[in-house]
């Protein structure tokens, strides 16, 4: 066993065979939905699909929080904007059915526009304000989604929009099962591959951004905004770019979500969901792409695993004392506090990083250890 692991390790460490590692990972990812279905059942394939969506969301928020150090507490609003743009233009609600390939970039653009509209007035102020304004923004979007059913019915209010077109390109629809080379791809499988492609693309974009000129500018602003602007970085525009870029990821994920679910309602876009995405970023490791992906996968699986806690309590205490959904939120809150106190850079910290921003108190005595 140890001999085998050493062999694998030396093989993986050798640059000549690195492609082998990647090949193995790729193979594993491609086989994953079928493996998961065989071992854990179909419901877990669906959970995997959702996890991939959350990877995209978390990576988008990571650009804003992790790279640029701007705390966005209403990130789910961009997800909502993307989802509703898709839902409105591809459902019987307004009677329009635009093609998917047009709607996805459109949703992304609309979300980015909202990001700029929101960021424009607030980004020139200090970060704390952004946190509150985004918090409010997230709620306001939901208030509108809930109430825009009168006097003209646009969003169908709390009932949400149903019968959204599935992902369809040309005559090829993901809503039906397809059989290719003896393998049957049911919709959850097909969506898995689409989402996987999008998630991998998001990872590549994030990694490339991190080391780009813009990425370095973001990190500079995060670590010391004053110094960054002294180095000639247009801090407002660069921050706005981070905001718009993060929103774009959210918009794309939202469009995919709407086509996957076939149904959207304001209920999916609560503050709690923003907090959950934030937890993924913070727990995984702000600014580290791999850590954020890990955080997204862990935190999508956790609530599903917590479902088993309800019956467990039933058998131990004779009643369900803590609702698993509440338990999840309690754990999230606790995790946020403990992470910041004990391990502020996350489970899988980024190599170059000090959490963010200038020290909390500008009037500190110099020389006091931080």
């Amino acid at each position: 066993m140890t001999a085998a692991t050493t062999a694998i390790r030396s093989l993986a460490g050798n640059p000549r065979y690195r492609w082998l590692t990647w090949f193995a990972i790729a193979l594993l990812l491609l086989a994953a939905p079928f493996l998961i279905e065989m071992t854990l059942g179909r419901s877990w394939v669906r959970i995997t699909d959702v996890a991939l969506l959350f990877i995209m969301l978390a990576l988008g928020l990571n650009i804003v929080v992790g790279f640029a150090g701007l705390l966005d507490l209403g990130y789910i609003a961009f997800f909502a904007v993307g989802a509703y743009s898709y839902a409105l233009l591809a459902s019987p609600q307004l009677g329009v059915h635009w093609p998917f390939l047009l709607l996805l970039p459109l949703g992304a653009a609309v979300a980015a526009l909202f990001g700029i509209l929101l960021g424009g007035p607030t980004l020139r102020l200090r970060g704390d304000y952004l946190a509150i304004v985004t918090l409010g923004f997230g709620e306001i979007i939901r208030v509108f989604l809930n109430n825009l059913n009168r006097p003209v019915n646009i969003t169908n209010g709390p009932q949400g929009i149903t019968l959204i077109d599935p992902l369809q390109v040309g005559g090829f629809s993901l809503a039906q099962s397809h059989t290719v080379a003896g393998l049957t791809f049911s919709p959850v499988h097909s969506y898995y591959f689409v989402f996987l492609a999008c998630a991998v693309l998001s990872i590549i974009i994030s990694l490339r951004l991190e080391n780009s000129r813009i990425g370095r500018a973001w990190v500079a602003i995060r670590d010391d905004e004053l110094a960054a602007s002294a180095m000639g970085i247009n801090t407002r525009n660069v921050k706005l770019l981070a905001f718009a870029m993060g929103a774009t990821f959210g918009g794309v994920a939202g469009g995919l979500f709407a086509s996957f679910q076939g149904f959207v309602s304001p209920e999916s876009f609560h503050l709690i969901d923003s907090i959950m995405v934030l937890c993924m970023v913070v727990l995984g490791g702000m600014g580290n792409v791999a850590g954020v992906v890990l955080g997204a996968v862990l935190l999508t699986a956790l609530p599903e695993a917590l479902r088993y806690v309800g019956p467990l309590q039933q058998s131990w205490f004779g009643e369900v004392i803590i609702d698993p959904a509440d338990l999840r939120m309690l754990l999230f809150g606790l995790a946020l506090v403990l992470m910041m106190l004990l391990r502020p850079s996350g489970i899988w910290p980024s190599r170059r990083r000090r959490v963010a921003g200038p020290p909390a108190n500008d009037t500190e005595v110099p020389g006091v250890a931080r």
Partner: protein
Amino acid sequence: MEIFAQQLVNGLVLGSIYALVALGYTMVYGILGLINFAHGDITMIGALVSLTAVQLLAAAGVPAPAVLVLAGGAAIVVCVALGVSIERIAYRPLRHAPRLAPLITAIGISILLQYSAALIWGKQYIPMPEIVEPTRIVIAGAQLTSLQVTIFLLACAIMAGLLWFIKASRMGRAMRATEQNPAVAGLMGVNTNTVIAFTFVLGSAIGAIAGLMVVLYYGLGHYFMGFMLGLKAFTAAVLGGIGNVAGAVLGGLLLGVIESLASGYIGDLTGGVLGSNYRDIFAFLVLVLVLVLKPSGLMGQHSGDRA
């Protein structure tokens, strides 16, 4: 005109509650430069504790004024204990940490408080037993209950007392010194840790009273009620100039009136397109407008990014 007077009066009463909560935000922000996200939820805890106390005491047959005093006292004790421990556990270790860290613990604490309350009190709306028979007063065509008058007067008394305390007392002077420059205040013999802890004591106690007022006014308590209340109170603090105690009072009253008038008239102004179900967005609009036009708020001395 009668509607106007009515909405104005309602707005002032509501605004005085906002102002009390805003004081908690503004005092902590002034001294630590931290938005204490958990403050709205401390108010919520105060509200639910006093609600439970009222239910128990009223059932035990205690006379109404004593019930209110005891309930308020219970809420203050619980909230002060919470506020001080939160500062000690979640904020003090991070005082010199980068800015994002205490902000994130504050959100974590806020979630913890909300869902702990959901565990204790459940997720349904809890009705407040009506212990005071409301008497109606009419002033300039506006109907007022004695409860509204009491809330408004009590809030004004607390705010005036606080302003006097900060201006005239020894502790108040230490608070102002710490706000200006904690390091130098420390050198002058001010124990800044005590001052900061005391700020949380004051803020939480006032928040607890505000919580009691909210359940008395609306007659309902809910584990999530601290969220919107906190958001609005924060807006009030920004409107008045965050860090400025008198500004928080002004901002709170103003925001209450704006919200009340706007949600009262929005239906007529837009021909029924938008209704009072949009009332929660006005606070947000005010917040964004203030941040765009005058980030330092109405009474703030600082300008630029410090606001």
